[in-house]
């Protein structure tokens, strides 16, 4: 951990995935999530697969410890489906993965696509029974004439196998597309949010869920905003927040009412009249909301900035960080190519001191909340020497371009970093760049 009070210096650790000219749609990573200890890192892709990486023991114990992960398990979580009732395809893309806190040897995670949430158990198996009485090793039935003595099977060690099995399937509760899931701190319930509704589930019960938020108007013509993200408070099991496409965040307390349509707190920053434009509402749409680990703050990501809110103050955020302000003048063309609707995620560091979010051209932004310093780094494969500190990048707006800078018009808007994850305890980050997963760790 960087306890020295200085800036974190990031080094390349690993990159997962292959280099290809044309990326298969199914390989595009759609979510990244560390588990509560950081031991496992799960990614979901557009093809409905989940890949789990495990921290490499050797690298962890090495001095200095390296952040290296190896493939631990791969499984197909969701398949494409067809809804006959509505004549619609249901994509198998994994929208979110959330881990449950580990209680025994097995790991559990929730993965969701647009309509269905599944609880997966990931278990190791390193022993198998051998020496059956009636069957030989290949599984063929033994000739009864050869069986002269009783043979009781015993467990023999075998090569490690990781099994993933679906334990619960939570289906048919969402009319619209699920955009978030969040496990409660009680580890017994979780919420799932779609565009207009939020449901509360018990992990044991799959055929029932409680609807706790419903913002669907009676007349759909009056629809003005949708829910974009929702999360439970990390410590208080009755508190959750949900963000909207209009830039507001509502905090609700489930103890208040059964249906939490009325919020307990609403966080909204008054609009800056000088910056008002046709796109103001679109770029104010919040794409991600995350509580800090200590539960006192929350962070929201809209198109151009990241804001840190104190839960005790609703009137405005306590900190605002510009991610790529140079895009403000380009909003028109970004609207034309749909990039203005990209949903970026954001991440807290384990100590809540740093925050990170993605941008275009495979850039990602790091903000130090204490020193107010920020840096732009690039996830690319040009790694010259190992243990080299990543060089900060700079985007220039005006005419004169300095040597290492890149001009706004040269940015590749197809290379976007939407999904990032930060190890909960160490300074290791996972960045999803289209179909590649980069892992960086701090130098010390």
């Amino acid at each position, binding site marked *: 951990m960087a306890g020295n009070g200085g800036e974190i210096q990031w*080094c*390349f650790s*690993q*990159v*997962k995935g*292959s280099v290809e000219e044309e990326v*298969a*749609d*199914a*390989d595009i*990573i759609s979510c990244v999530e560390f588990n509560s200890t950081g031991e496992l890192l799960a*990614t979901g*892709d557009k*093809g*409905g*697969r989940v*890949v789990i990486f*495990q921290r490499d023991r050797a690298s962890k114990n090495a001095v200095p410890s390296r952040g*290296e992960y190896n*493939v631990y*398990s*791969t499984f*197909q979580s*969701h*398949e494409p489906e*067809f809804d*006959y009732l509505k004549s*619609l*395809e*249901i*994509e198998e893309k994994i929208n979110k993965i959330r881990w449950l806190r580990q209680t025994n040897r097995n790991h559990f995670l929730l993965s969701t696509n*647009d309509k269905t949430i599944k609880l997966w158990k990931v278990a190791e198996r390193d022993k198998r*029974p051998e020496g059956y009485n009636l069957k030989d090793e290949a*599984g063929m039935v033994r000739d009864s004439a050869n069986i002269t003595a009783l043979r009781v099977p015993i467990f023999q060690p075998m*090569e*490690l*196998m*990781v*099994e993933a099995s*679906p*334990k*619960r*399937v939570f289906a048919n509760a969402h*009319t*619209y*597309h699920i955009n978030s899931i969040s496990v409660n701190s009680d580890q017994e319930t979780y919420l799932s949010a779609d*565009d207009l509704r939020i*449901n509360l589930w018990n992990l044991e019960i799959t*055929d029932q869920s409680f*609807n706790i938020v419903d913002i669907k108007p009676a007349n*759909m*013509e009056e*629809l003005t905003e*949708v829910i*974009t993200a929702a999360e439970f408070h990390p410590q208080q099991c009755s508190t959750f927040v949900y963000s909207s496409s209009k830039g507001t965040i509502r905090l609700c307390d489930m103890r208040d009412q059964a249906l939490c349509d009325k919020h307990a707190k609403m966080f909204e920053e008054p609009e800056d009249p000088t910056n008002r434009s046709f796109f103001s509402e*679109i770029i104010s749409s919040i794409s991600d909301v995350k509580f800090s680990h200590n539960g006192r703050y929350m962070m929201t990501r809209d198109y151009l900035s990241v804001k840190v809110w104190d839960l005790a103050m609703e009137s405005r955020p306590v900190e605002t960080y510009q991610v790529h302000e140079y895009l403000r003048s380009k909003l028109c063309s970004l609207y034309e190519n*749909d990039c203005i*609707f990209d949903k970026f995620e954001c991440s807290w560091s384990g100590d809540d001191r740093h925050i990170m979010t993605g941008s275009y051209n495979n850039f990602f932004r790091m903000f130090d909340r204490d020193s107010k310093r920020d840096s732009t780094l690039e996830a690319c494969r040009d790694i010259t020497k190992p*243990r080299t500190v990543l060089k900060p990048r700079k985007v220039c707006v005006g005419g004169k371009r300095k040597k290492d800078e890149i001009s706004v018009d040269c940015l590749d808007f197809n290379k976007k970093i939407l999904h990032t994850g930060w190890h909960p305890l160490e300074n290791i980050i996972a960045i999803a760049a289209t*179909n590649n997963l980069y892992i960086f760790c701090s130098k010390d």
Partner: protein
Amino acid sequence: MSQASASNMEVDPPSSSGVQPSSGGTLKRSNSAPMINMLVATSQSVEVSPSSSFKPADASRLRRLSSSNMGVNAASNLPAPKSTDRVNQIKHEENNITDRETQHEKEVHYSWQVTNSWDGLSLATPDSVMSESHRRPRSFSESLHIMTSPSLLCGSPSPTRIIKQCFSPSMRAPVKNTTFTPSPSPSPTRKSFIRSLSPIATQAPPLKRKLESDGGDRFDYLSPPKKFHTGPSTPDRNLPHPLAHSISSSSLEESSPEQTVPRSCLPPGPHPRPPLASHPPHPHHHHHAQSHSSTMHHQHHKAFMPVAADLTDIHMADSETSEFVEHTEMSDLGKHAIGEHTSQGGGFTPIHPDRV
């Protein structure tokens, strides 16, 4: 507290994934529609299709539609909203439910028309392909039907039919779960069953290939183990995930060769990819430390996909096949999306609709 809002689902207008944030989704539907419509439009002049409800009025409307930019929204009068603005998207969908359903009904109906119109056509197929291929039970002129994957048929996979997906971290490959069942043949309690498909009921727009549904013929060239797995991924998909391919800084330090794991070999489905010619049919094994696992891997590959191994060579020669999609369990991990299955399982050269 209210029950699950599932009861509202019939009433509430759904969100359409046809008008999706990803323009790829919109593209998919609009790609398939004009082809079918144009086909029917042309077949109209040939007068192949049976009478029933296909009126001249429909035909002219059809022609008009086929010339414009097709898509789900083309049927409606409203201009398609910016696909990724969710609020407007939902509103638009609510207002155009009937239009979308009508459109879908039309698509299914036209597909059925096309299906029946195949009867009047015969094709000269390359004899070399036919003779080398596996015993192909039917010729091209037979009726073709829409085929979807079994998982589509049964909706979400039944959780009661829990199928463990096992993965070996050391081999970096999925393996068959043989811990408690060291039997080479499937359990006798499992029945192989063949689903009968109603060609009308199932349509996945990106699918351009239609297969026969009655009788067991269509499964002759598909791998047998497929039939008793209807849940999520089966052990047949034992190719490594692309993310297994890794480059580490530690490996750079020791200047050891790049750790590569056999890349998924099967060429993906139709659209952006160039035809098979640019993709090797088998994984290229970079042998070094992983050579042992690679070899085993390859054997796995062969063990589970006997048919494919023979056919890939054939398909190399045919550059047209990648246009077609056909469901087969032998498609690799990433290719489950509708319309993204390779045509490896087939022992025949599919027809390109444009060629008709």
